[in-house]
């Protein structure tokens, strides 16, 4: 029998395969973007400015101690109950006359907030509080606001607030952005995020 030598493999298409892979990875890669909770700090103020007077019923105090325990309205609470408690407070709507809340579905408890525009959540930490706990508390409070905003947006415009914001920030959204922005502003006016942070105690 004749002994044949192996034929040479044509390597001309190797480059094409490499390019194909390159293009595949280029297309499928997303450069990671950071995400987080955005907050706006208050202006720096001189020490001697008198704080405005706010009725106690409109303040929802949340305190976190150095053992990462929560004290909400003078009572101990688990983190998992915080969102619900905050929603209850914001949605209470006990106001009458000028301060009446037309959309609140809360219990109208006379010792709680009059309406969401007036309601303020006051957050106080200890210097020893862990940052992770602080973020968790912030997250729950933002979630409470978002829950209410979602409910109202759903009722008024048939779309949740989070979805509206997502659409607004989506460059490929081809609806009417101006109108969407107006709707977002209406909801934000109805339920403003009033989260006050006191300086931590040591």
């Amino acid at each position: 029998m004749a002994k044949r030598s192996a034929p040479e493999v044509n390597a001309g298409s190797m480059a094409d395969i490499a390019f194909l892979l390159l293009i595949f990875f280029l297309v499928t890669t997303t450069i990671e973007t950071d995400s987080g909770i955005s907050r706006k700090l208050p202006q720096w103020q001189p020490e001697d400015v008198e704080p405005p007077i706010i009725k106690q019923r409109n303040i929802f105090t949340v305190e976190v101690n150095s053992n990462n325990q929560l004290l909400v309205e003078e009572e101990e609470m688990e983190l998992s109950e915080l969102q619900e408690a905050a929603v209850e407070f914001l949605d209470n709507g006990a106001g009458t006359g000028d301060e009446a809340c037309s959309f609140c579905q809360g219990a109208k408890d006379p010792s709680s907030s009059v309406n969401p525009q007036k309601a303020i959540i006051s957050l106080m930490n200890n210097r020893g509080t862990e940052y992770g706990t602080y973020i968790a508390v912030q997250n729950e409070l933002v979630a409470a606001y978002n829950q209410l905003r979602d409910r109202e947006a759903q009722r008024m415009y048939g779309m949740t607030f989070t979805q509206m914001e997502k659409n607004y920030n989506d460059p490929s959204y081809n609806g009417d952005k101006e109108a969407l922005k107006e709707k977002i502003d209406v909801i934000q006016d109805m339920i403003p995020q009033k989260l006050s942070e006191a300086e931590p105690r040591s």
Partner: protein
Amino acid sequence: MSKFKKKKSGDLPAISTASLPDIVFMLLFFFMVATVMRQNTLMVQNKLPFADQVEKLDKKDLIMYIYAGKPSQRYQAKYGTEARIQLNDKFASVEEVQQFIYAERESKREELIPYLTTALKVDEETNMGLVSDIKQELRKAEALKINYTTVVGDAMQNVN
């Protein structure tokens, strides 16, 4: 005249190396894709907390990063285990935050300055004392837009 000519030598032909550059390129591309670019070398522990009510931070050029946390293992001998602030590539004291903000502003175009955001990348074990000191300094420097950078996930995981 025979159609099947018998080759003289029984040696194997040399393997073609023409495709070697392609393999090398492929590896190069793979590493290019898989690499995450980092602007700063982290010198502190940076396990970010979880949160799910998050907003995305686009426009990388408009963000100033402040890191805080315990010094990483290899710096612990020198700097101890007390949580510290890292600005650019070195440890900094609280007072230096203002200076850092001004320096960052200086390097940006004037019309972009109002849109600058400060991203706080703080390790979840850090005490709030340090974080609020940073926040006070930011208020003094009028860098009011901040973002607590987090990992997307259930916030309850922070507590345990």
